Protein backbone atom coordinates (compact mmCIF):
# COMPACT_ATOMS: atom_id res chain seq x y z
CA UNK A 1 0.00 0.00 0.00
CA UNK A 2 1.36 3.46 -0.91
CA UNK A 3 0.89 5.40 2.28
CA UNK A 4 -0.22 9.03 2.12
CA UNK A 5 -0.30 9.27 5.90
CA UNK A 6 1.34 6.92 8.34
CA UNK A 7 1.45 7.04 12.10
CA UNK A 8 3.33 4.51 14.16
CA UNK A 9 3.11 4.32 17.94
CA UNK A 10 2.43 8.03 18.29
CA UNK A 11 2.23 9.29 21.84
CA UNK A 12 1.31 12.70 23.13
CA UNK A 13 1.00 13.99 26.66
CA UNK A 14 -0.65 17.31 27.43
CA UNK A 15 -0.08 18.40 31.01
CA UNK A 16 -0.39 15.24 33.09
CA UNK A 17 -2.75 13.52 30.70
CA UNK A 18 -1.61 11.07 28.06
CA UNK A 19 -3.90 12.08 25.20
CA UNK A 20 -2.52 9.64 22.61
CA UNK A 21 -1.34 6.28 23.90
CA UNK A 22 0.64 4.91 21.00
CA UNK A 23 -1.70 5.18 18.06
CA UNK A 24 -0.83 3.65 14.70
CA UNK A 25 -2.67 3.72 11.40
CA UNK A 26 -1.97 4.17 7.73
CA UNK A 27 -3.99 6.00 5.12
CA UNK A 28 -3.37 4.88 1.54
CA UNK A 29 -3.16 7.31 -1.37
CA UNK A 30 -6.67 7.99 -2.67
CA UNK A 31 -8.40 6.79 0.51
CA UNK A 32 -11.21 8.65 2.17
CA UNK A 33 -10.32 7.75 5.71
CA UNK A 34 -12.85 8.26 8.50
CA UNK A 35 -11.42 9.11 11.89
CA UNK A 36 -14.06 8.62 14.55
CA UNK A 37 -14.32 8.91 18.26
CA UNK A 38 -16.19 10.59 21.09
CA UNK A 39 -15.30 14.05 22.36
CA UNK A 40 -11.95 14.02 24.13
CA UNK A 41 -10.88 10.78 22.45
CA UNK A 42 -7.82 12.35 20.84
CA UNK A 43 -9.06 13.09 17.30
CA UNK A 44 -8.22 16.78 17.29
CA UNK A 45 -4.84 16.14 18.91
CA UNK A 46 -4.03 13.64 16.15
CA UNK A 47 -5.07 16.13 13.48
CA UNK A 48 -3.03 18.88 15.09
CA UNK A 49 0.01 16.63 15.15
CA UNK A 50 -0.51 15.75 11.49
CA UNK A 51 -0.67 19.45 10.62
CA UNK A 52 2.49 20.17 12.60
CA UNK A 53 0.61 22.27 15.12
CA UNK A 54 1.60 19.99 18.01
CA UNK A 55 4.71 17.86 18.45
CA UNK A 56 4.32 14.18 19.26
CA UNK A 57 6.31 13.04 22.29
CA UNK A 58 7.32 9.88 20.48
CA UNK A 59 6.48 7.77 17.46
CA UNK A 60 6.97 8.01 13.73
CA UNK A 61 4.82 10.17 11.49
CA UNK A 62 5.06 10.71 7.77
CA UNK A 63 2.96 12.33 5.09
CA UNK A 64 3.69 11.23 1.52
CA UNK A 65 6.78 9.57 2.94
CA UNK A 66 8.19 12.80 4.38
CA UNK A 67 8.77 13.76 7.98
CA UNK A 68 5.92 16.06 9.03
CA UNK A 69 8.26 18.38 10.88
CA UNK A 70 9.73 19.62 7.60
CA UNK A 71 7.95 22.83 6.70
CA UNK A 72 7.97 21.91 2.98
CA UNK A 73 5.47 19.15 3.74
CA UNK A 74 2.85 21.78 4.60
CA UNK A 75 2.72 22.64 0.90
CA UNK A 76 1.35 19.14 0.26
CA UNK A 77 -1.39 19.27 2.91
CA UNK A 78 -4.70 21.11 2.77
CA UNK A 79 -6.87 21.48 5.81
CA UNK A 80 -10.31 22.53 6.99
CA UNK A 81 -10.50 22.90 10.73
CA UNK A 82 -13.24 23.64 13.20
CA UNK A 83 -13.56 26.65 13.71
CA UNK A 84 -12.90 27.39 10.05
CA UNK A 85 -10.53 30.35 10.51
CA UNK A 86 -12.02 32.34 7.64
CA UNK A 87 -11.96 36.13 7.87
CA UNK A 88 -15.50 37.43 8.30
CA UNK A 89 -14.71 40.94 7.12
CA UNK A 90 -13.17 39.71 3.88
CA UNK A 91 -14.91 38.36 0.80
CA UNK A 92 -14.60 34.76 -0.38
CA UNK A 93 -12.24 35.91 -3.12
CA UNK A 94 -10.05 37.80 -0.66
CA UNK A 95 -9.94 34.87 1.77
CA UNK A 96 -8.84 32.50 -0.99
CA UNK A 97 -6.48 35.10 -2.43
CA UNK A 98 -4.73 35.47 0.92
CA UNK A 99 -4.09 31.75 1.25
CA UNK A 100 -3.18 31.43 -2.43
CA UNK A 101 -0.43 34.01 -1.88
CA UNK A 102 0.77 32.26 1.28
CA UNK A 103 1.15 29.05 -0.76
CA UNK A 104 2.75 30.98 -3.65
CA UNK A 105 0.08 29.86 -6.12
CA UNK A 106 0.68 31.12 -9.62
CA UNK A 107 -2.22 32.72 -11.50
CA UNK A 108 -4.19 33.40 -8.34
CA UNK A 109 -7.21 34.90 -10.11
CA UNK A 110 -7.85 31.89 -12.30
CA UNK A 111 -7.32 29.44 -9.45
CA UNK A 112 -9.80 31.30 -7.24
CA UNK A 113 -12.40 31.37 -10.01
CA UNK A 114 -12.01 27.59 -10.53
CA UNK A 115 -12.34 26.85 -6.84
CA UNK A 116 -15.35 29.08 -6.30
CA UNK A 117 -17.03 27.38 -9.24
CA UNK A 118 -16.17 23.95 -7.82
CA UNK A 119 -17.81 24.76 -4.49
CA UNK A 120 -20.67 26.64 -6.15
CA UNK A 121 -19.91 30.02 -4.61
CA UNK A 122 -19.10 32.02 -7.75
CA UNK A 123 -22.19 34.18 -7.37
CA UNK A 124 -21.25 35.09 -3.77
CA UNK A 125 -17.55 35.66 -4.45
CA UNK A 126 -17.74 39.36 -3.64
CA UNK A 127 -19.79 38.98 -0.47
CA UNK A 128 -18.21 39.19 2.95
CA UNK A 129 -17.82 35.75 4.52
CA UNK A 130 -19.54 37.05 7.67
CA UNK A 131 -22.82 37.01 5.70
CA UNK A 132 -22.44 33.33 4.70
CA UNK A 133 -24.45 30.42 6.09
CA UNK A 134 -22.57 27.64 7.91
CA UNK A 135 -22.82 25.39 4.85
CA UNK A 136 -21.38 28.07 2.57
CA UNK A 137 -18.54 28.68 5.01
CA UNK A 138 -17.69 24.99 5.05
CA UNK A 139 -17.69 24.88 1.24
CA UNK A 140 -15.39 27.89 1.20
CA UNK A 141 -13.15 26.25 3.80
CA UNK A 142 -12.90 23.23 1.49
CA UNK A 143 -12.00 25.55 -1.39
CA UNK A 144 -9.31 27.11 0.78
CA UNK A 145 -8.00 23.64 1.63
CA UNK A 146 -7.65 22.99 -2.11
CA UNK A 147 -6.17 26.34 -3.09
CA UNK A 148 -2.63 24.98 -3.57
CA UNK A 149 -3.77 21.62 -4.93
CA UNK A 150 -2.42 19.54 -2.06
CA UNK A 151 -2.17 15.77 -2.25
CA UNK A 152 -3.54 15.21 1.25
CA UNK A 153 -6.57 16.84 2.82
CA UNK A 154 -7.13 16.83 6.57
CA UNK A 155 -10.72 17.76 7.36
CA UNK A 156 -11.92 18.22 10.92
CA UNK A 157 -15.71 18.03 11.22
CA UNK A 158 -16.40 19.57 7.80
CA UNK A 159 -20.17 19.14 8.13
CA UNK A 160 -20.56 20.09 11.80
CA UNK A 161 -23.49 22.45 12.24
CA UNK A 162 -24.43 22.30 8.56
CA UNK A 163 -28.06 21.65 7.55
CA UNK A 164 -28.85 18.37 5.72
CA UNK A 165 -28.80 19.86 2.22
CA UNK A 166 -25.52 21.61 3.02
CA UNK A 167 -24.11 18.32 4.32
CA UNK A 168 -24.96 16.63 1.03
CA UNK A 169 -23.18 19.39 -0.90
CA UNK A 170 -20.08 19.26 1.29
CA UNK A 171 -20.04 15.46 1.08
CA UNK A 172 -20.31 15.59 -2.71
CA UNK A 173 -17.38 17.99 -2.91
CA UNK A 174 -15.29 15.63 -0.75
CA UNK A 175 -16.20 12.67 -2.95
CA UNK A 176 -15.32 14.61 -6.09
CA UNK A 177 -11.97 15.56 -4.65
CA UNK A 178 -11.08 12.02 -3.71
CA UNK A 179 -12.38 10.27 -6.79
CA UNK A 180 -11.85 12.73 -9.62
CA UNK A 181 -8.64 14.33 -8.41
CA UNK A 182 -7.24 11.32 -6.55
CA UNK A 183 -6.68 13.22 -3.32
CA UNK A 184 -6.26 11.48 0.00
CA UNK A 185 -8.77 12.65 2.57
CA UNK A 186 -8.58 12.18 6.32
CA UNK A 187 -12.00 13.04 7.64
CA UNK A 188 -12.63 13.47 11.33
CA UNK A 189 -16.32 13.41 12.07
CA UNK A 190 -19.03 12.69 14.59
CA UNK A 191 -21.44 12.03 11.76
CA UNK A 192 -21.40 8.23 11.56
CA UNK A 193 -23.85 8.10 8.69
CA UNK A 194 -21.62 10.41 6.68
CA UNK A 195 -18.50 8.38 7.41
CA UNK A 196 -20.30 5.17 6.50
CA UNK A 197 -21.41 6.69 3.20
CA UNK A 198 -18.13 8.08 1.97
CA UNK A 199 -15.18 6.53 3.80
CA UNK A 200 -13.58 3.35 2.52
CA UNK A 201 -11.43 2.94 5.62
CA UNK A 202 -11.94 3.99 9.21
CA UNK A 203 -10.25 4.18 12.57
CA UNK A 204 -12.16 4.47 15.82
CA UNK A 205 -10.26 6.12 18.62
CA UNK A 206 -11.25 6.28 22.26
CA UNK A 207 -9.29 7.59 25.22
CA UNK A 208 -6.20 7.91 23.09
CA UNK A 209 -6.22 4.37 21.72
CA UNK A 210 -7.28 3.02 18.33
CA UNK A 211 -10.08 0.56 19.08
CA UNK A 212 -11.08 -0.39 15.56
CA UNK A 213 -9.21 0.09 12.32
CA UNK A 214 -9.61 -1.23 8.82
CA UNK A 215 -11.79 -1.22 5.73
CA UNK A 216 -15.30 -0.02 6.54
CA UNK A 217 -17.07 -2.84 4.70
CA UNK A 218 -14.99 -5.67 6.11
CA UNK A 219 -15.31 -4.28 9.62
CA UNK A 220 -19.07 -4.10 9.21
CA UNK A 221 -19.21 -7.63 7.88
CA UNK A 222 -16.98 -8.91 10.64
CA UNK A 223 -19.03 -7.28 13.29
CA UNK A 224 -22.36 -8.29 11.84
CA UNK A 225 -21.58 -12.00 11.54
CA UNK A 226 -23.35 -12.59 14.82
CA UNK A 227 -26.39 -10.38 14.25
CA UNK A 228 -29.64 -12.10 13.25
CA UNK A 229 -32.88 -10.32 12.39
CA UNK A 230 -36.16 -12.22 12.58
CA UNK A 231 -39.30 -10.69 11.06
CA UNK A 232 -42.54 -11.95 12.68
CA UNK A 233 -46.14 -11.82 11.40
CA UNK A 234 -47.38 -10.21 14.59
CA UNK A 235 -46.02 -8.77 17.79
CA UNK A 236 -44.34 -11.37 19.97
CA UNK A 237 -46.19 -11.91 23.30
CA UNK A 238 -44.49 -10.59 26.40
CA UNK A 239 -44.27 -14.02 28.01
CA UNK A 240 -42.18 -15.30 25.11
CA UNK A 241 -40.04 -12.19 25.20
CA UNK A 242 -39.41 -12.69 28.92
CA UNK A 243 -38.46 -16.31 28.25
CA UNK A 244 -36.12 -15.20 25.44
CA UNK A 245 -34.43 -12.70 27.72
CA UNK A 246 -33.65 -15.44 30.17
CA UNK A 247 -31.75 -17.39 27.48
CA UNK A 248 -28.38 -15.70 26.91
CA UNK A 249 -27.36 -18.27 24.31
CA UNK A 250 -29.98 -16.86 21.91
CA UNK A 251 -28.91 -13.32 22.75
CA UNK A 252 -32.06 -11.24 22.20
CA UNK A 253 -30.76 -7.71 21.79
CA UNK A 254 -33.74 -5.69 20.60
CA UNK A 255 -37.48 -6.03 20.15
CA UNK A 256 -38.89 -3.64 17.54
CA UNK A 257 -42.63 -4.44 17.16
CA UNK A 258 -42.55 -7.22 14.55
CA UNK A 259 -38.78 -7.53 14.45
CA UNK A 260 -36.45 -9.32 16.84
CA UNK A 261 -32.73 -8.71 16.72
CA UNK A 262 -30.40 -11.34 18.18
CA UNK A 263 -26.70 -11.57 18.85
CA UNK A 264 -26.51 -15.32 19.45
CA UNK A 265 -23.63 -16.96 21.25
CA UNK A 266 -21.08 -18.98 19.30
CA UNK A 267 -22.43 -22.31 18.14
CA UNK A 268 -26.02 -21.05 17.80
CA UNK A 269 -27.36 -20.93 14.25
CA UNK A 270 -30.24 -18.95 12.73
CA UNK A 271 -32.14 -22.21 12.44
CA UNK A 272 -31.87 -22.74 16.24
CA UNK A 273 -33.58 -19.39 16.86
CA UNK A 274 -36.26 -20.13 14.25
CA UNK A 275 -36.95 -23.57 15.77
CA UNK A 276 -37.19 -22.13 19.26
CA UNK A 277 -39.71 -19.51 18.10
CA UNK A 278 -41.82 -21.83 15.95
CA UNK A 279 -42.07 -24.28 18.84
CA UNK A 280 -43.82 -21.43 20.68
CA UNK A 281 -46.14 -20.77 17.72
CA UNK A 282 -44.51 -17.51 16.67
CA UNK A 283 -45.18 -17.05 12.96
CA UNK A 284 -41.99 -16.07 11.18
CA UNK A 285 -42.03 -14.11 7.91
CA UNK A 286 -38.31 -13.73 7.38
CA UNK A 287 -34.88 -14.31 8.86
CA UNK A 288 -31.53 -12.86 7.86
CA UNK A 289 -28.07 -12.09 9.06
CA UNK A 290 -27.70 -8.33 9.28
CA UNK A 291 -24.73 -6.08 8.44
CA UNK A 292 -23.85 -3.84 11.33
CA UNK A 293 -24.12 -0.11 10.82
CA UNK A 294 -21.24 2.07 11.78
CA UNK A 295 -23.40 3.37 14.59
CA UNK A 296 -23.72 -0.14 15.99
CA UNK A 297 -19.99 -0.70 15.69
CA UNK A 298 -19.37 2.59 17.42
CA UNK A 299 -21.80 1.80 20.25
CA UNK A 300 -20.33 -1.67 20.67
CA UNK A 301 -16.85 -0.19 20.93
CA UNK A 302 -17.93 2.34 23.52
CA UNK A 303 -19.74 -0.37 25.54
CA UNK A 304 -16.61 -2.50 25.51
CA UNK A 305 -14.56 0.40 26.76
CA UNK A 306 -17.08 1.13 29.54
CA UNK A 307 -16.95 -2.50 30.66
CA UNK A 308 -13.17 -2.29 30.90
Amino acid sequence: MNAAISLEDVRKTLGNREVLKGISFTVAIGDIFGYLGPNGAGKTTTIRILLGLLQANSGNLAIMGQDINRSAIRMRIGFALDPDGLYDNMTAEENLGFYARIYRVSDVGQRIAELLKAVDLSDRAQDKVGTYSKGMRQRLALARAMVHEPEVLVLDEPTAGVDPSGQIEVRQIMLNLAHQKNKTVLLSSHNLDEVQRICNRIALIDRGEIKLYGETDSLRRGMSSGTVVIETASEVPQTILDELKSLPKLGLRENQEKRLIFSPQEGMEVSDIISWLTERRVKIEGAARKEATLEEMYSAMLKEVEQI
Partner: protein
Amino acid sequence: MKDIGLITSVSIRNNLRSNIIVAVLIAVVLICAISLVLAFCLLAIAPAMKTEIPDRHTLEMFLSVTIYGACLIGLGINMNVFAQTMMREKSRGNITALLATPLKASHIWTGKSLAVFLPGLVLGEVLGLISLLAVNYIYFVPRIGFLINPWMAISSFVAVPIIYLGLSLLVHIIGLAGKPATANVIVQVFLPVFAALMINLGIRHVLDAASWLFTVANLALSVIIVVIAILLRPRLTRERIVLSC
Protein backbone atom coordinates in the same frame (compact mmCIF):
# COMPACT_ATOMS: atom_id res chain seq x y z
CA MET B 1 9.86 39.61 4.49
CA LYS B 2 7.31 38.87 1.76
CA ASP B 3 5.25 36.77 4.19
CA ILE B 4 5.37 39.47 6.87
CA GLY B 5 4.26 42.07 4.32
CA LEU B 6 1.40 39.84 3.19
CA ILE B 7 0.15 39.20 6.73
CA THR B 8 0.49 42.88 7.62
CA SER B 9 -1.38 44.18 4.59
CA VAL B 10 -4.19 41.63 4.83
CA SER B 11 -4.56 42.17 8.59
CA ILE B 12 -4.67 45.96 8.22
CA ARG B 13 -7.33 45.66 5.51
CA ASN B 14 -9.29 43.20 7.66
CA ASN B 15 -9.03 45.41 10.77
CA LEU B 16 -10.07 48.55 8.93
CA ARG B 17 -13.02 46.88 7.18
CA SER B 18 -15.33 47.45 10.11
CA ASN B 19 -16.68 50.95 9.43
CA ILE B 20 -18.07 51.29 12.94
CA ILE B 21 -14.75 50.52 14.59
CA VAL B 22 -12.86 52.90 12.32
CA ALA B 23 -15.42 55.66 12.90
CA VAL B 24 -15.27 55.16 16.67
CA LEU B 25 -11.46 55.11 16.60
CA ILE B 26 -11.18 58.34 14.62
CA ALA B 27 -13.85 60.06 16.71
CA VAL B 28 -12.25 59.08 20.03
CA VAL B 29 -8.74 59.97 18.85
CA LEU B 30 -9.88 63.37 17.57
CA ILE B 31 -11.86 64.19 20.71
CA CYS B 32 -8.95 63.21 22.98
CA ALA B 33 -6.29 64.94 20.88
CA ILE B 34 -8.28 68.17 20.45
CA SER B 35 -9.11 68.22 24.18
CA LEU B 36 -5.48 67.72 25.11
CA VAL B 37 -4.16 70.37 22.72
CA LEU B 38 -6.87 72.84 23.76
CA ALA B 39 -6.17 72.23 27.44
CA PHE B 40 -2.44 72.90 27.01
CA CYS B 41 -3.05 75.90 24.77
CA LEU B 42 -5.57 77.53 27.06
CA LEU B 43 -4.07 76.60 30.43
CA ALA B 44 -0.34 76.76 29.70
CA ILE B 45 0.69 78.25 26.36
CA ALA B 46 -1.76 81.18 26.19
CA PRO B 47 -0.92 82.45 29.73
CA ALA B 48 2.82 82.07 28.99
CA MET B 49 2.42 84.10 25.81
CA LYS B 50 0.77 86.96 27.70
CA THR B 51 4.03 88.03 29.30
CA GLU B 52 5.94 90.84 27.62
CA ILE B 53 8.92 88.65 26.72
CA PRO B 54 7.74 85.04 26.64
CA ASP B 55 10.24 82.51 27.99
CA ARG B 56 11.25 80.53 24.94
CA HIS B 57 12.32 77.45 26.88
CA THR B 58 9.05 77.27 28.84
CA LEU B 59 7.12 77.53 25.59
CA GLU B 60 9.27 74.80 24.03
CA MET B 61 8.53 72.57 27.00
CA PHE B 62 4.77 73.15 26.75
CA LEU B 63 4.85 72.64 22.99
CA SER B 64 6.86 69.45 23.42
CA VAL B 65 4.37 68.01 25.91
CA THR B 66 1.48 68.96 23.61
CA ILE B 67 2.97 67.25 20.56
CA TYR B 68 4.10 64.29 22.65
CA GLY B 69 0.60 63.87 24.05
CA ALA B 70 -1.00 64.08 20.60
CA CYS B 71 1.32 61.36 19.24
CA LEU B 72 0.68 59.18 22.29
CA ILE B 73 -3.07 59.52 21.84
CA GLY B 74 -2.95 58.54 18.16
CA LEU B 75 -0.77 55.50 18.75
CA GLY B 76 -2.23 54.50 22.11
CA ILE B 77 -5.95 54.62 21.32
CA ASN B 78 -5.36 52.86 18.00
CA MET B 79 -3.64 50.05 19.86
CA ASN B 80 -6.36 49.89 22.51
CA VAL B 81 -8.91 49.37 19.75
CA PHE B 82 -7.05 46.91 17.52
CA ALA B 83 -5.04 44.86 20.01
CA GLN B 84 -8.30 43.04 20.76
CA THR B 85 -8.35 41.58 17.26
CA MET B 86 -5.85 38.99 18.51
CA MET B 87 -8.43 37.60 20.95
CA ARG B 88 -11.03 37.42 18.17
CA GLU B 89 -8.66 35.82 15.69
CA LYS B 90 -7.59 33.18 18.18
CA SER B 91 -11.13 32.24 19.11
CA ARG B 92 -12.24 32.08 15.46
CA GLY B 93 -9.39 29.82 14.43
CA ASN B 94 -7.66 32.36 12.15
CA ILE B 95 -4.34 31.97 13.94
CA THR B 96 -4.49 28.16 14.04
CA ALA B 97 -5.27 28.13 10.30
CA LEU B 98 -2.28 30.36 9.57
CA LEU B 99 -0.01 28.13 11.66
CA ALA B 100 -1.05 25.10 9.60
CA THR B 101 0.37 26.79 6.49
CA PRO B 102 4.10 27.06 5.68
CA LEU B 103 4.21 30.48 7.42
CA LYS B 104 6.60 30.77 10.35
CA ALA B 105 5.12 31.64 13.74
CA SER B 106 7.56 34.55 14.03
CA HIS B 107 6.33 35.96 10.70
CA ILE B 108 2.73 35.79 11.89
CA TRP B 109 3.74 37.54 15.11
CA THR B 110 5.64 40.32 13.34
CA GLY B 111 2.97 40.76 10.67
CA LYS B 112 0.15 41.00 13.19
CA SER B 113 2.15 43.40 15.38
CA LEU B 114 2.88 45.68 12.43
CA ALA B 115 -0.77 45.55 11.33
CA VAL B 116 -1.82 47.02 14.67
CA PHE B 117 1.12 49.44 14.90
CA LEU B 118 1.15 51.00 11.42
CA PRO B 119 -2.31 52.65 11.38
CA GLY B 120 -1.49 54.08 14.82
CA LEU B 121 1.83 55.36 13.53
CA VAL B 122 0.06 57.28 10.77
CA LEU B 123 -2.55 58.61 13.20
CA GLY B 124 0.02 59.60 15.83
CA GLU B 125 2.43 61.28 13.41
CA VAL B 126 -0.36 63.18 11.65
CA LEU B 127 -1.86 64.36 14.96
CA GLY B 128 1.59 65.34 16.27
CA LEU B 129 2.38 67.26 13.11
CA ILE B 130 -0.98 69.03 13.05
CA SER B 131 -0.55 69.99 16.72
CA LEU B 132 2.96 71.31 16.05
CA LEU B 133 1.82 73.42 13.11
CA ALA B 134 -1.41 74.60 14.75
CA VAL B 135 0.20 75.76 18.01
CA ASN B 136 3.08 77.40 16.17
CA TYR B 137 0.96 79.31 13.68
CA ILE B 138 -1.72 80.33 16.21
CA TYR B 139 0.60 81.39 19.05
CA PHE B 140 4.30 81.56 18.18
CA VAL B 141 4.85 82.55 14.54
CA PRO B 142 3.17 85.96 14.90
CA ARG B 143 5.38 86.94 17.86
CA ILE B 144 8.51 84.83 18.26
CA GLY B 145 8.72 82.72 15.13
CA PHE B 146 8.43 78.98 14.50
CA LEU B 147 9.35 76.97 17.61
CA ILE B 148 10.85 73.51 17.46
CA ASN B 149 13.90 71.76 18.86
CA PRO B 150 15.38 68.41 17.80
CA TRP B 151 14.80 66.72 21.18
CA MET B 152 11.08 67.43 21.18
CA ALA B 153 10.86 66.15 17.61
CA ILE B 154 12.78 62.94 18.40
CA SER B 155 10.78 62.30 21.60
CA SER B 156 7.43 62.71 19.87
CA PHE B 157 8.00 61.50 16.32
CA VAL B 158 10.59 58.77 16.90
CA ALA B 159 10.66 57.57 20.53
CA VAL B 160 6.88 57.33 21.01
CA PRO B 161 6.40 55.25 17.84
CA ILE B 162 9.28 52.95 18.86
CA ILE B 163 7.71 52.52 22.30
CA TYR B 164 4.44 51.52 20.66
CA LEU B 165 6.16 49.26 18.14
CA GLY B 166 7.81 47.48 21.09
CA LEU B 167 4.51 47.38 22.94
CA SER B 168 2.76 45.94 19.89
CA LEU B 169 5.40 43.21 19.60
CA LEU B 170 5.18 42.54 23.33
CA VAL B 171 1.40 42.31 23.59
CA HIS B 172 1.19 40.22 20.45
CA ILE B 173 3.70 37.69 21.73
CA ILE B 174 1.80 37.55 25.03
CA GLY B 175 -1.51 37.32 23.18
CA LEU B 176 -0.28 34.62 20.80
CA ALA B 177 1.68 32.41 23.17
CA GLY B 178 -0.43 33.14 26.24
CA LYS B 179 -3.70 34.78 27.07
CA PRO B 180 -4.93 37.58 24.78
CA ALA B 181 -6.85 38.96 27.76
CA THR B 182 -3.56 39.60 29.58
CA ALA B 183 -2.23 41.40 26.52
CA ASN B 184 -5.38 43.52 26.38
CA VAL B 185 -5.03 44.52 30.02
CA ILE B 186 -1.43 45.63 29.39
CA VAL B 187 -2.54 47.74 26.43
CA GLN B 188 -5.49 49.26 28.29
CA VAL B 189 -3.38 50.16 31.32
CA PHE B 190 -0.28 51.31 29.46
CA LEU B 191 -1.66 54.41 27.72
CA PRO B 192 -3.17 56.21 30.76
CA VAL B 193 -0.33 55.25 33.11
CA PHE B 194 2.46 56.05 30.67
CA ALA B 195 0.87 59.27 29.40
CA ALA B 196 0.10 60.53 32.92
CA LEU B 197 3.62 59.68 34.11
CA MET B 198 5.57 61.22 31.24
CA ILE B 199 3.42 64.35 30.90
CA ASN B 200 3.62 64.95 34.65
CA LEU B 201 7.37 64.44 34.67
CA GLY B 202 7.59 66.86 31.76
CA ILE B 203 5.48 69.69 33.07
CA ARG B 204 6.75 69.38 36.66
CA HIS B 205 10.32 69.89 35.46
CA VAL B 206 11.44 66.51 36.77
CA LEU B 207 12.30 65.62 33.18
CA ASP B 208 12.35 68.70 30.98
CA ALA B 209 10.12 67.69 28.05
CA ALA B 210 12.19 69.71 25.60
CA SER B 211 15.53 68.32 26.75
CA TRP B 212 17.75 65.45 25.62
CA LEU B 213 17.09 63.73 28.96
CA PHE B 214 13.39 63.35 28.16
CA THR B 215 14.29 61.91 24.76
CA VAL B 216 16.80 59.49 26.26
CA ALA B 217 14.27 58.38 28.89
CA ASN B 218 11.76 57.61 26.15
CA LEU B 219 14.27 55.82 23.96
CA ALA B 220 15.47 53.80 26.97
CA LEU B 221 11.91 52.73 27.70
CA SER B 222 11.38 51.75 24.08
CA VAL B 223 14.58 49.67 24.14
CA ILE B 224 13.47 47.93 27.37
CA ILE B 225 10.10 47.00 25.86
CA VAL B 226 11.64 45.74 22.61
CA VAL B 227 14.23 43.70 24.56
CA ILE B 228 11.48 42.11 26.71
CA ALA B 229 9.58 41.20 23.53
CA ILE B 230 12.73 39.68 22.00
CA LEU B 231 13.47 37.75 25.20
CA LEU B 232 9.98 36.25 25.05
CA ARG B 233 10.49 35.20 21.42
CA PRO B 234 11.52 31.57 22.26
CA ARG B 235 8.05 31.06 23.78
CA LEU B 236 6.51 31.56 20.37
CA THR B 237 6.13 27.93 19.28
CA ARG B 238 3.28 26.53 17.23
CA GLU B 239 2.36 24.17 20.06
CA ARG B 240 2.20 26.90 22.68
CA ILE B 241 0.10 29.13 20.43
CA VAL B 242 -2.34 26.36 19.48
CA LEU B 243 -2.78 25.16 23.05
CA SER B 244 -3.51 28.70 24.21
CA CYS B 245 -6.26 29.17 21.59
